[in-house]
């Protein structure tokens, strides 16, 4: 495997030439914190060989004309990370009890828990931000023609991620269990039941029975916090792998420049 060029070290990490009058009485090299850090990283790298992979992922060549629109995918990723982190910690206080426990625990998070209103707000508004960003990202890929060969599979995985994200929005909407959450879920499940032949059974599956019952909320909670996030994380991994492997596209307004070696010879 050809070795990729190492990126230049930041100035703070570059070795400094010894100054006149410095006889080495200062910190010994082995006690230098920079040296110690490099030694620790080397120790891990020697055993895992992670650094070529990291360099392959982080220091890719990008085409000329790459602009701010290319950051929408990473922005969506960070919106997901925000949802994951705030969601994990909200789960420490939330109780999926449909006879009042859920509403009470959300009320406690919002009004009493230290920083609860902030963390819940990050999760609630972050959900909308993620939906907006994922559609902007999809629009960027579509209008730049970046879904074309050889990136079709990246697009397909992205569409699955979009559907899973919308499913997250649907299942998360019920969890506060207020009037809006309850009736929105009733309407959503009934829309789902409108699919011919399998629609009614899918709705039975979602509700855990014929009607909204004691286990519907815990079912939505399990789907919302375990099943879909796991699938999203795995698919984001596949999506990113393909992005790094195939590279990104140049903006459509840049004309392709044929390589000199490939240009036809002309009579001089």
């Amino acid at each position, binding site marked *: 495997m050809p070795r990729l060029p190492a990126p230049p070290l930041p100035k703070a990490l570059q070795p400094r030439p010894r100054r006149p009058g410095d006889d080495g009485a200062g910190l010994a090299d082995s006690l230098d914190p920079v040296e110690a850090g490099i030694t620790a990283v080397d120790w891990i790298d020697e055993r895992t060989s992670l650094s070529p992979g990291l360099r392959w992922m982080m220091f890719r060549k990008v085409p000329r004309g790459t602009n701010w629109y290319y950051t929408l995918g990473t922005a969506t990723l960070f919106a997901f990370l925000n949802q994951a982190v705030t969601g994990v910690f909200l789960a420490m206080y939330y109780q999926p009890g449909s006879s009042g426990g859920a509403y009470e625990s959300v009320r406690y998070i919002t009004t009493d828990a230290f920083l609860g209103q902030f963390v819940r707000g990050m999760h609630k508004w972050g959900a909308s931000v993620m939906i907006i960003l994922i559609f902007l990202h999809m629009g960027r890929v579509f209008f730049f023609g970046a879904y074309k060969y050889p990136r079709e599979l990246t697009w397909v995985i992205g569409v699955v991620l979009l559907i899973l994200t919308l499913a997250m929005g649907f299942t998360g909407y019920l969890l506060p269990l207020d009037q809006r959450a309850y009736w929105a879920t009733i309407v959503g499940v009934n829309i789902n039941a409108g699919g011919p032949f399998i629609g009614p059974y899918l709705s039975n599956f979602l509700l855990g029975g014929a009607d909204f*019952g004691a286990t519907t909320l815990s079912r939505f909670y399990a789907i919302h916090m375990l099943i879909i996030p796991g699938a999203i994380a795995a698919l984001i991994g596949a999506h990113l792998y393909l992005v790094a492997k195939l590279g990104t596209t140049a903006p459509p307004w840049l004309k392709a420049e044929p390589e000199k070696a490939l240009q036809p010879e002309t009579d001089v």
Partner: protein
Amino acid sequence: MPGAFEGETVTRRRFMTGVVMGAGGIATAAFTLPALAFSAGPVFKHEQWTWQPIGPATDFPKDNFVTRVIQIQQGPLGAAGEVNNTLAYVRSRNPAIDTEPEDQYNHWIALSSRCMHLGCPVRWTPAAERFICPCHGGVYDIRGMVTGGPPVRPLDRFYTRFNHARRLVEVGPRYSVNSELRRFSPRYPGEPVDGIGQYLYPRQFAQPKPPPGVSQKK
């Protein structure tokens, strides 16, 4: 690919590969399939229903509705709190307007408050003598027949009966009706039961069984 012995059709390497793959597949299926079936179990389980008393016969007029809160599901986990409640609009049968055939289960007309468009709660407006849905403008008359808006079928109903021992009217399981008030097993809102609709949206296994001796189309 030649085998280790003369006439051997499956090499040891292929056999071992097959055994390892097969064992891994069986081990994975051993925990995945039961878990999936476990989560899908409620789809195939008949829900139970008990008759719920809603008051003496004199409570219910012929030309106006009285509301009663009833429980929609009595699962093994017991009451689920307020989410378990639903509203029934109840009146006595009025031979002048109720032309569907009479039997022991419709001396009182108990209409479900769930709109048959997408399941929002409809409200009886006495001045207009109409049920009106706040979500998308579904309108129904005193029999629950659609008179306007997007609903695909008349309001669902509950079986009612008179308990002679307790001298109380009781409400039983829900059923759906088509535009001729023919009884069907309960459907979700938004699923028509006229014409081809009754086949596009088949009977659900999870819905409670109708009371004995009642003709209800599947």
